[in-house]
């Protein structure tokens, strides 16, 4: 889910080829990297998988923010393991994108100069320890709702990456819930942290699903190609329906006065997030956009000599090996 508002490309390919391609997708076949595919399918997937990968990478930062302040050795170990998993997800996803003919370095450069996006959620700050529980519970929880169906997506490498990612993400969501439950059942100060984290992250978590379908111009083609499996509103409703009882179980106050059970629909009603805020964040004006991108750019620039050095050594080593043979 870490892909939002992915612009779907129209295709100008040969109509016969397009029809045959669509027939394969409709029959539930997987498209593999060497198969023919419409240029628009390739371009849209690079954008979507790339955005997802970047989200995993930038997503290390808000959680990394608390690793050095984790309150126990066990919590520190759990958080480290989780952030390490996210970096691993980034790696699988970049590999999946590479099968479409774009390199990881190219994608990285597009992230760093702002040509490619990452999920809006990572532009929000993590301000107290309960955020580490809330991020796992709400953010990973929201991501899973989008990623579980993507295990069935039409592009083989993406689908296989999602299968691995989902196993780890559901573990993270459970760990997150455990961490916030500890806070919600803790001292008054801890409960206050849990409530604060929920209140701050609720609407940003709802925004992760993207704007309402009525305003979403990219869905139809992506859904036909099975690279988007559900509408944004379907998934958002599912998220609200599964999360509200969890909030009640935790004994926390609901973060939105508009949440009420709607007997007729069989779903919870809820208030819409502030979409103006969402578009501000997408356009670079979220609370942390500048700092997140600056941190990634600094890591990349500071690491240049390391990458160059290790590459030069690998070349020398290979040359020495050839010379010795």
């Amino acid at each position, binding site marked *: 889910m870490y892909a939002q508002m992915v612009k779907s490309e129209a295709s100008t390919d040969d109509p016969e080829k397009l029809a045959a391609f669509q027939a394969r997708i409709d029959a539930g076949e997987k498209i593999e990297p060497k198969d023919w595919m419409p240029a628009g399918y390739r371009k849209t997937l690079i954008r979507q998988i790339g955005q997802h990968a970047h989200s995993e990478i930038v997503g*290390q930062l808000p959680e990394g923010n608390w690793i*050095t302040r984790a309150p*126990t050795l066990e919590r520190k170990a759990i958080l480290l393991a989780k952030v390490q998993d996210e970096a691993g997800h980034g790696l699988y996803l970049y590999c999946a994108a590479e099968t479409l003919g774009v390199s990881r370095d190219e994608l990285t450069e597009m992230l760093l100069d702002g040509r490619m996006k990452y999920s809006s959620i990572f532009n929000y700050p993590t301000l107290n320890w309960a955020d580490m529980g809330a991020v796992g519970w709400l953010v990973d929880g929201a991501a899973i709702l989008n990623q579980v169906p993507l295990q069935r997506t039409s592009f083989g490498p993406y689908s296989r990456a999602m299968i691995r990612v989902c196993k780890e993400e559901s573990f993270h969501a459970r760990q997150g819930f455990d961490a916030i439950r500890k806070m919600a059942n803790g001292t008054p100060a801890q409960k206050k942290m849990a409530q604060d984290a929920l209140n701050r992250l609720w609407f940003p978590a709802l925004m992760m699903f993207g704007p309402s379908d009525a305003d979403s111009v990219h869905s139809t083609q992506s859904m036909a190609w099975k690279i988007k499996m559900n509408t944004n509103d379907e998934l958002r409703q599912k998220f609200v329906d599964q999360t509200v009882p969890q909030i009640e179980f935790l004994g926390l106050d609901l973060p939105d006065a508009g949440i009420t059970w709607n007997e007729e629909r069989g779903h919870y009603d809820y208030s819409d997030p502030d979409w103006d805020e969402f578009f501000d964040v997408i356009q670079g004006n979220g609370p942390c956009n500048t700092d997140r991108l600056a941190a990634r750019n600094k890591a990349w620039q500071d690491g240049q000599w390391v990458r160059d*050095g290790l590459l030069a050594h690998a070349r*020398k080593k290979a040359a020495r090996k050839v010379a010795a043979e």
Partner: protein
Amino acid sequence: MAATLTQDEALFQFLLRMGDNTLILGHRVSEWCGHAPVLEEDIALANTALDLIGQTQMWLGLAGEVQGAGKSADDLAFLRDVWDFRNVLLVEVPNADFGRTLMRQFLFDAWHSIQLGHLMKSSDPRIAAIAAKTSKEVAYHLERSADTVVGLGDGTEESHGFIQAALDYLWPYVGEMFTSDAVDAAMVDAGIAPDPASLRSDYDALVLRVLEDATLTVPDSRFAHKGGRTGAMHTEHLGHLLTQMQWLQRAYPGASW
């Protein structure tokens, strides 16, 4: 302290030295999260930190048992002040750049792997068991840090410069790992741990071989900064590290996390 040191007090000090080394180095390495030069290094650094924190739980857990004051590994990690820490100064110096971080890791890993090799034969079965488990992780840490030091030393002129500067900065912190005192004498007498000074020749053989492969120049000095493993004089850096690491436990005493 030396004249009145009981066996349990000496053992407690020894275990703090082991656990504080892994705690403080694990903390330092974890500061890299999300900021490494390349994704594979982010993963490797997090993995190393994770191993070290896991090892800390074992060493400080046993230290708490030996101390017999009902303290957990977390109590020892989060509720002691600078003067009670027993890690060597090497592990508390700041990360600076990636070169210094990896050189510090290598200089520590080399000592750590040799030390654990001896501890696997400890007369104390609890220590032998921790050493057996952790030595496998540390063998991998050493392989990786040595390879990276060689890669950066024998890479470009620029990477060579960075890693040589790291070695020059860190070399005066190496000697402390091989200083011996009354705690060590008590450990040697009981067959629990080797005399630190006795590890130096194996260490030099290992480290000098790698540094030579890395085309680095070893500083011509045996001067050693001391004071970490006795707690007599840490660097100024440790206090800042603790203010961050211990903040939640200090600000909200008695809470369960």
